[in-house]
């Protein structure tokens, strides 16, 4: 292996040099240089997803990967090799779009069979399957990936007045890119500085064999999925597992955020609550110190020498507080009892020593490869671990550099699924549409619909679309109203709404717009308690589970509106809002609870009657009013009226919604009285029938 790798690299360099000079682009003499319109950094799921879209639109692109295969993160992580992303292959449905709602691992493509289920049938698949899937994805779609190119430095450069980027790999090969797409993921383990942090093992390097933890007391720093995953694997071997971090556990099934603790990993909650020696503790990481002390350390009566026998010399780790240590020095080798919290508070929770302390604090973005002007700012949220990006995922301060994948999670950190494959596959698609508009003047794809079709189109999206469903609150469908028709744009990044026209290339008219968003409820109640679900459509705004929400604006919200949006809302206060009541089966297709309220909302926004009418009614209305209702204008009068059969029309007559012409009175002529008589009699009879 060690011999082959340098060889391969050499080959790569050779081929590059050859290729470069062959194409005539090698301007810099011996310093080999390649230029591409798009450089994608990293062949992980996000990089490959972008690669697919670039390849489909036939752009000049290259995916640079430092390792020898795609998705190398998954070769190592998760350390205990079980993916917790749901791979639900049986949904009872054959709708491919709908099924993506329950497939969290597949990437998007136009190949119906290029799904993760081809690799694994497990609900929680093995981590090894994922790189295999990615390799298949690369191979079948013929994506251009250059492996073994380890980019160590990224500089900004000026290319035709626009900021471009020059990437240099370990061999000095440089890549000139007009647009840089950073999908490097998060690789750098997050660390917190405190005294004794060198005594702590990291998640990235701990042994995964539970036997190594036999009868050991383990302190894990962190309460996320990696901490619990680690705890779970050693649960049957370790004597005591304590989890320590600032904030309490957040459960994914309570917060609806998949980055919070998933039930797949939460066995320790059981052993904690059933008092089986494990536990969770909250406290600041910056305040603690880990100190080493010999077992049973401290002052001993010199006389008794028999007490130290078997575990002679074995040191144990204590958790203490910085403030209890001597102020003057970092000399923590001489720890006395006074330096430990247990000395002061006899029932201090973490007073017992540990055999191991493990850090499971997650990962951060690698900012170090970016030179000054090319370095994106740190995000304000997520403890600065992520690059800050605009609402359309362009680095803050780094034009023409976009951040994709997990690294772009700062937009919806702890809110939605943008940090996970099943979420960012859609944001990548959205970014690609923005690229197409900005660099190639190809407007955001839109479906032109007559208004009479709008309701059924919305219902269709609500019932099958996977993008807004997975990226709830972040990506939403935009409906640009244009009078008698509308344009339907799918999966636009909501926070970029003020820049809609520029980003999508679709101008706005004064007819306003509608935004369709999927949202969880905002007032969280007891997730499993009574009253957790709402079934009355008039109380739909109190829905707690994922449900569609429509916002109507008569003009585009400004950035200021966006900043001042109501607390917890994805969008500013609209002119009118409509919540479609949450549905137990996530099927929003019922006439009374879903369709009709939606239609009435649309009618209000469009200020027009959207009811469908049978051809016979349209016939009547077309001859007796100068502008018949919209449905008649866009259907019947275009010769596509809905005739219905007599059985249905009879229903409509019985419901009193269609006039009955058979028995109309004919006043004015001689027969009127006798006709009337029939009626008067009938009225008496019919009243009786009603009373029955």
């Amino acid at each position, binding site marked *: 292996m060690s011999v082959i790798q340098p060889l391969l690299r050499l080959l790569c360099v050779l081929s590059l040099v050859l290729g470069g000079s062959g194409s005539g682009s090698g301007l810099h003499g011996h310093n080999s240089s390649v230029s591409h319109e798009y450089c994608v950094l990293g062949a992980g799921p996000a990089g490959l997803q972008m690669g697919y879209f670039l390849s489909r639109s036939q752009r000049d692109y290259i995916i640079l990967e430092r390792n020898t295969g795609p998705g190398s993160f998954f070769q190592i992580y998760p350390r205990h090799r079980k993916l917790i992303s749901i791979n639900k292959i049986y949904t009872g449905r054959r709708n491919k779009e709908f099924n993506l709602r329950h497939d969290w691992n597949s990437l998007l493509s136009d190949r119906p069979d290029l799904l993760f289920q081809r690799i694994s049938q497990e609900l929680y698949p093995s981590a090894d399957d994922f790189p295999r899937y990615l390799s298949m994805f690369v191979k079948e779609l013929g994506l251009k990936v250059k492996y073994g190119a380890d980019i160590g430095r990224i500089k900004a450069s000026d290319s035709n007045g626009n900021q471009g980027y020059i990437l240099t790999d370990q061999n000095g090969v440089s890549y000139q890119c007009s647009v840089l797409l950073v999908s490097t993921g998060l690789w750098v383990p997050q660390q917190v500085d405190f005294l004794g942090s060198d005594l702590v093992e990291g998640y990235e390097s701990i042994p995964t064999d539970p036997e190594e933890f036999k009868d050991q007391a383990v302190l894990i720093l962190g309460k996320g999925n990696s901490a619990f995953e680690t705890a779970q694997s050693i649960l049957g071997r370790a004597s005591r597992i304590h989890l320590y971090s600032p904030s309490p556990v957040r459960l994914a099934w309570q917060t609806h955020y998949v980055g919070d603790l998933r039930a797949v990993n939460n066995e320790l909650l059981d052993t904690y609550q059933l008092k089986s020696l494990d536990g969770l503790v909250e406290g600041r990481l910056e305040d603690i110190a880990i100190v080493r002390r010999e077992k049973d350390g401290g002052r001993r009566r010199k006389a008794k020498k028999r007490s130290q026998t078997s575990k002679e010399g074995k040191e144990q780790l204590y958790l203490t507080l910085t403030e209890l240590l001597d102020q003057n020095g970092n000399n923590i080798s001489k720890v006395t009892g006074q330096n430990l*919290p247990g000395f002061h508070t006899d029932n201090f929770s973490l007073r017992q020593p540990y055999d191991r302390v493990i850090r499971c604090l997650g990962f951060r973005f690698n900012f170090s490869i970016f030179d000054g002007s090319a370095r994106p700012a740190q995000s304000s949220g997520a403890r600065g671990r992520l690059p800050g990006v605009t609402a359309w995922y362009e680095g803050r301060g780094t034009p023409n550099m976009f951040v994709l994948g997990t690294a772009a999670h700062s937009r919806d950190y702890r809110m939605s699924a943008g940090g996970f494959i099943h979420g960012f596959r859609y944001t990548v698609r959205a970014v690609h549409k923005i690229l197409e508009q900005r660099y190639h003047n190809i407007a955001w794809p839109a479906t032109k619909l007559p208004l009479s079709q709008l309701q059924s189109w919305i219902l269709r999206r609500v019932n099958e679309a996977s993008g807004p469903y997975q990226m709830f609150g972040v990506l939403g469908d935009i409906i640009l109203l244009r009078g008698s028709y509308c344009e339907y744009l799918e999966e636009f990044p909501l926070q970029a709404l003020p820049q809609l026209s520029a980003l999508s290339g679709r101008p706005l008219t004064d007819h306003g717009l509608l935004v369709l968003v999927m949202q969880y409820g905002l007032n969280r109640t007891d997730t499993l308690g009574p009253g957790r679900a709402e079934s009355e459509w008039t109380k739909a705004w109190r829905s707690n589970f994922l449900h569609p929400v429509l916002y109507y604006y008569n003009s585009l919200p400004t950035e200021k509106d966006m900043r001042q949006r109501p607390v917890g809302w994805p969008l500013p206060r609209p002119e009118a809002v409509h919540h479609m009541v949450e549905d137990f089966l996530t099927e929003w297709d019922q006439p009374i609870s879903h369709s009709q309220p939606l239609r009435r909302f649309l009618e209000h926004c469009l200020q*027009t009657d959207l009811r469908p009418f049978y051809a016979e009614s349209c016939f009547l209305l077309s001859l007796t009013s100068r502008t018949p209702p919209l449905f008649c204008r866009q259907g019947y009068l275009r010769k596509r009226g809905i005739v219905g059969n007599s059985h249905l029309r009879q229903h409509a007559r019985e419901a009193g919604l269609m006039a009955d012409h058979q028995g109309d009175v004919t006043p004015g002529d001689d027969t009127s009285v006798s006709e009337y008589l029939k009626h008067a009699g009938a009225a008496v009879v019919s009243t009786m029938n009603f009373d029955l």
Partner: protein
Amino acid sequence: MCIVYLAAFLFSLTSEQCSSKLIEDSSQSFMERMHSGKTSFIYFGNHVNPTIKLFVEQLVMSADALQDYGISVVKVNCSKDAIANYCTGEKLMTRAYLFRGSEVLRSFDIDTVFDVNAIVSHVLFSVLFNEVRYVHTPAELLRVESTAKQNSDIVVGHIPVLGLPEHRALMEAAFVYGTKYQFVQTTGTLVLKHMGVVDPSSSQARLWFLHCKGVSRRSDPCPSTPMRKTLNTINIHTFLQLMEAPLVPQTQHLDRATAQTLALQLRGEVGVVLIHRDSPNVKAALKYNAAYRLPQEDVTYFTLNSAEGVVKLFKEELLQEHKLEDEEEDEEHWSDLDILDDEVSESVYRDRDLMLDLESVIELTSDTFQTTVTQNEITVVLFYFKWDAVCMAFIQSYIEVADALEGMNGVKLAAVNCGEWTDICSDQNVTSFPTVLIYRPMAEAQLYRGMLGTKCLHGFILLSLVSSPYLLSSSAEVMSFLEGDLYSKHMYLTPVRVLGLFSSTHDMGVTPFEEAARLLRGETILGLFAHKEAEQWVEGLSVNLPALLVSRGPGVPHEVYSLPSSSPTDLVSLIKQVELDRFPELTVENLPWYLELGKPLLLLFIGKEDSTESTKALAEIKRPLSSGQLDSFLPCWIHLGRTPVGRSILEKYLGFVPPLPVLVMSRLKTGEEVFLFPPERPLMAKNILQWIHDVQSGHEQPAGLIPDGKWGPPVPFFDFLAIMDQEAPTYAAQRAPKMKTGGREDHREQKHVTQNQRQTPHPSPNPQAPRQHSEL
């Protein structure tokens, strides 16, 4: 013996009631009555049983009541005076008759006119037939309203059961106020709903006053005031008096506006009067500016701050009983929201437990789609959504077509559920639902552009099987195509044949014509005759080849048009246009083609029975047709038997249905007036032309108006924002400007940190309790 006894008994009854107004007629007085022309209510009897006895008692009472209205109540003893026609037959004893002179206005079963109230109400209703409109549907009511607007106010009474005291009270009111107001009676629950009653099943009688006279524009609706008290003569009278009273009498000064608002809102319940403070009779303290007096109570003074406050005071506090009622209405108003209000959804919803029998339709999947659509000569595919009412309404017709075509070779009907097979629907570019596409092997899918109904689709599919264009190689074949064997083969589909005539197959126009014919497959039967003999068919006509010949069946003269060289799509629209009938019968299915022409309609309505009058009228309109005198119009006709909805059109145009046939001019696009050809004038070509001339020169008065109503939302929408603001005031409010953008989560995190810091004191030398580590 028996008869004698009974006669004696009857006589005794009469003698007892000689003080009453009930008249007993002999045959002679009856004959006189017949010639007097007066209105009388007559009962013929020949014996008495307990039922009849009770009825006669009621008859006696009604005689008193009806005398006030100039109606005599008469009894004829048939055992004494056998009057022809009435004293014989099965109906004797069980019927009573209302006469005007010798004419019977109406006959009643005595079960219907069972008591005095029933007698009075039914008799008055019959007498007032022309004054009191009887409506069933909201539409009818609206028509009455539209004719009454700016003219007179309307009193609407809802009488759930006829013949009860409420009915009588309404009829009596109608008799008194009939000349002043338009009275409307309804028994239907539909009208109730229309008037905003939430529980139409309650059998309470109701009354509304519609203020139509004062509406400023004809397009405005008439404001209505419900009468909140029970329906009896006194209450109706009071109510109508209140309606009649000026809103604010003795109005002076600037307070008028306030008083008027108040009066409008309290109309029918509270009278509002403005009194000048300086008037010597006023003894009110200065701090008060208003006063009220409830019945049987003293005047109470109070301070008026706003009109709303007063309305609230009255509606909620002083008129307690109404408050309850209002609340009830409010509550049920929202439950009303759960009723489907569109005809398609509701009719489909009513079939929700009906399992659709899709046996004759193949349900396609992603796996079977491609193979199926290439297998048959014609595969018709319906793209639908299960949850779309329009799709589900159409699918019933679609199944009917499939059933009708089952077993036919080369034709298969299939369906794709786009809720499941979304990929097929996207691949086939279907963006509108329902959509029907016609697939043929090796050809692009053809969109079905016709009406979504059984008849139209069935015809289309059958026509699609006819090759298009139909290639004709000799004049004999052309003959056969136009009226011979080739014609009769498809005669049942359509009588119209369109023939493209070219001098040779090399003509430049042949290819576009063939392409157009392909596009029109299923819609038109097109023939193509590219032959040197084609010349014969245009001989003697002012048209040269290439030409288009239209035949509307054997015996009808052909029409010939010259065929310009143009694109296939232009040819399609040309062919569609020449195909149109020049004097069509309008039907639900074909109207859109004719409305597209944008011409004023000259519309003849023909009754159900095909009378000679109708045939004559049709012929009379046809006459000026050929001379081109009606070219600026679309002459057309509607047969009310085949198109019953035509009756509603007539009613909407004129407010009533005159004797048929009737000719109407409706300027749908250019104006709003509807003109009626005077019924007294005979429907003759020259009269019609004269009338058209009069209309155009403005000498005719319009008989009705076509409203240019905007179709706004039919119901107010459910305003979630308003509810949020009410129930959780800050929830939907924009944040105050100074707050930072940072997400909610960040704040929470910071808060958490500060909490910890606060909890961590720094007593360094003597750290008593580092309690910040808490086990939660």
